[in-house]
């Protein structure tokens, strides 16, 4: 403590030195402070920031995709189907579940929650959707599945064979799921389904040479997805 006071004193006594930047004792500390600042901000940026940015939410109850996939004939589309008008139904509604889940099946607690809290009360399950794109994006599933013949897993990964739902991480600023930016905070990806950002769409559109203009506006580029 006292040595610090000394230094302060010295500093005030030799202002010219300070201004000229020729202080003899400052050098190593300056580097040290640089390093402290550097490391601290790296820690904040890489470790703390992602933790603060996303809030963890759990789904209303757990769901086993693998189990269901084994029971159905038509793969993912058995439940995530296309409506007659070509629009994509997305997450199933009670209506699709109710045939089998009128009564509690098996022992699982999640099943009991589902049947008692939702089926019995005719309340739709408020699922949190990992892959929901921002509202400003126009994304037709039909064009990708039927037109481009993409597989579900190209964008959604191996969800179909998962046995439980991962926690939903919500971006506190945008309100959208972490899965859009991707798990990797730096934005690196190794699989096509690791991120769902605009660049990822653009990458595929670029390689496949998609310049189909928007039906509504008749224009290319941004307007293909942003109407």
């Amino acid at each position, binding site marked *: 403590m006292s040595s610090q006071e000394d230094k302060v004193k010295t500093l005030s006594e030799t202002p010219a030195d300070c201004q000229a930047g020729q202080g003899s004792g400052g050098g190593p500390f300056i580097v040290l402070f640089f390093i402290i600042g550097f490391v601290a901000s790296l820690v904040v940026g890489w470790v703390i920031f992602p933790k603060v940015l996303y809030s963890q939410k759990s789904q209303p109850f757990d769901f086993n995709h693998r189990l269901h996939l084994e029971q159905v004939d038509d793969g993912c589309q058995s439940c995530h189907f296309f409506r007659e008008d070509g629009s994509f139904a997305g997450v199933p509604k009670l209506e699709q579940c109710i045939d089998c889940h009128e009564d509690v099946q098996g022992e699982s607690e999640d099943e009991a929650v589902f049947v008692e809290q939702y089926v019995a009360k005719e309340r739709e399950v408020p699922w949190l959707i990992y892959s929901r794109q921002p*509202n400003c994006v126009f994304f037709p599933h039909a064009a990708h599945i039927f037109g481009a013949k993409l597989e579900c897993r190209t964008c959604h990964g191996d969800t179909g064979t998962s046995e439980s739902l991962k926690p939903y991480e919500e971006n506190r600023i945008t309100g959208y799921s972490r899965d859009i930016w991707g798990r990797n905070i730096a934005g690196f990806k190794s699989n096509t389904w690791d991120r769902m950002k605009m660049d990822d769409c653009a990458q595929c559109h670029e390689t496949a040479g998609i310049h189909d203009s928007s039906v509504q506006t008749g224009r290319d580029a941004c307007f293909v997805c942003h109407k």
Partner: protein
Amino acid sequence: MKVDRRSFLSLLIGGAAGTALSPLPWKLTDDLSIWTQNWPWTPVPPRGESYYETTTCTLCPGGCGIKVRKIDQRCVKIEGADEHPVNKGGVCILGLSGLQLLYGPTRIRTPLKRVGKRGEGKWEPVSWDQALTRLADKLKEVRAQGAPEKAACLLDSSRGTVGHLFRRLMTVYGSPNFFTMPSVEDAYRAALKLTQGIEARVGFDLENADFVLSFGCGLLDGWGSPVRVFKANSTWKENHATVVQIEPRLSNTAAKADHWLAIKPGSEAELALAMANVIVGRNLYRSEFVDGFCENFQGLKRILALHTPEAAAAATGLAPEVVVKWAVEFARASRPVALYGRGQGRTAAGSLRQCMAVMLLNALVGAVNRAGGMWTVPDYDYIGWEEPELDEVARAGLERPRADGAGSGKYTPASSLVQRLLGSGAGQLPEVLMVARCNPLYSLPENGAVKDNFDKIPFVVSFSSFMDETAANADLVLPEHVYLERLEDVPVTAGLSCPVIGLCQPVTEPRWDTRSLGDVVIALARKIGDSAAAAFQWDDYEACLKETLEDKWDTLEERGFWYDAEFRPPAWEDGEGKFRLAGGKLDEVLQADEIVPAGDPAKFPLILVPYDSIRLAHDYIGDPPFMIKAVGDDVLKGKDVCVQINPATARKFAVSEGSIVQLITPVGKARVRVHLDEAVMPGVLYVPRGLGHTAYDAYLAGKGINVNALIGSLEDPASGFDAAWGIRAKLAKV
């Protein structure tokens, strides 16, 4: 360790460098941009299955077919129904905004009983049973005094099963006092009665006309069935038909017409009669019709003799040659038609003389019941209920004269004269008044007097879905479903040439504890009991509707409308029906003095005239938020309504653009903003209808002024209709 400024700076630089090498800035920038492009507070419709349900719009008399786009259970958009004979896929701005009426904050959610003073806004929610019992008790009380005529009801119109149910209730109850709100259709109906001796309505075969002479009709401002007329206007453009707009102000219609004749306000009849004079004088009339099927041509000639183009020139301000020129062009066109009804034609639109003069023009050119002309369309006759059994009290009550005098004496041509009753207080005010689907406290002229008379009525019941001015001043409110929640027949008149019945069907569950008005009437009759209950034997309104529309029901359910596309008006044949051109009451009507606006010209040197705009709803329905946003700032600036005034007049009265002044008339005054506009005639001030609400929500209430508070009513001596088209006025400094 020495912490000096350099160390601190170095810490910051290190921090900056580290931050730049971390994902934080890039990720934050990205998130913020996503956030700004998707403001979380912007409402976004839920995702879900999208589909359409069809129904009929009842927000104006137009009767358009609409389809409502829904996402799961939520209605998200209204569009015009493509196959509908009235609007063929079109929809107007009011129709488009209908969902805001369904979901908006002004809905009344449950029956209400007034607990504070009238108009104070203190209500107590009551159950339907309590509310109906209270009303039934009141009605029984009045009846027990042997004066059933002291109960009255006021509706927008008497059309359809709901109108008929109310009328039936009044009949079994014993009151002749069934009132409807004024409309230009009243004048047409009276004119048909006088000329052809029939009860029918007038339709116009607009699409096939090749020369349209419009006496002030706001064809592009919401006249008739608005979307249909818009479409007809496109047809006229395609077919190179001529549209001549006769109107003192350059309205949208005038601006888009082929020719605009700016005449002095109120001189329509003079012009029409002078044109008739020219047509007769130059032998341009269609003699096959006039000689073949008209009566008393000589009488008409005598009357017309006074109406020379020179006389009209003085009245209208047009040169006599102009009068002659257009009379000749009109008569020489192959399918001409003359139209009457100022603005939207949904207010009492002037004297019967004006309507009659325009109708005579149609007769002279043989446009009556001819392609492209004015058609006589029979009233809908699908409601064929058996006459109810009346008891002693009812029979006696029905014998007594109507409180408004309509239908007898000099008011014979009229069927309802609510303005006489509520505005001028001419008749005996009722003890119980039931008001449905109209807002008389807002939309009747001479607003102040109407309110005073209204206050004298001991018991007022409103069936409104919205807390409008009338509901706010009622004693009891029994809210009905809005149109998107109810089942009902919508027989369309509004100048359609062919009969069309639309089916209004629920596209969504009722949002609040409201009921269908038909059910309310049936339940009320049951509560009144005795002969009233006996006259309403239907299980419920739906049963009544299905039974009534029996043979048309399947079509209605399947297509959403019933349409007689083959309809043609009765052809004129020898020995059958004649068109009377003059004589008797007709002479009286044609020779009545022209209506002069009230007020002393010395004190009030200007004339104030209200105008209609397609962007301002001015009757039962008030402007929803979407629509009020579309009102330009030359009409409403901030909270001030703009009074349109000619620059020359403004100079004379030393007012300038944007200045705030008092607009004073013999019946009221209001603060207005001056807007200089070459489009209006010198000496005439224009203020729009549809503003100045005190009720409804923050989007509408308190904006501008209600022009009805500044306009008086003037009784047409020949019919009793309110004929005031304007009033004397002056401007003063605030």
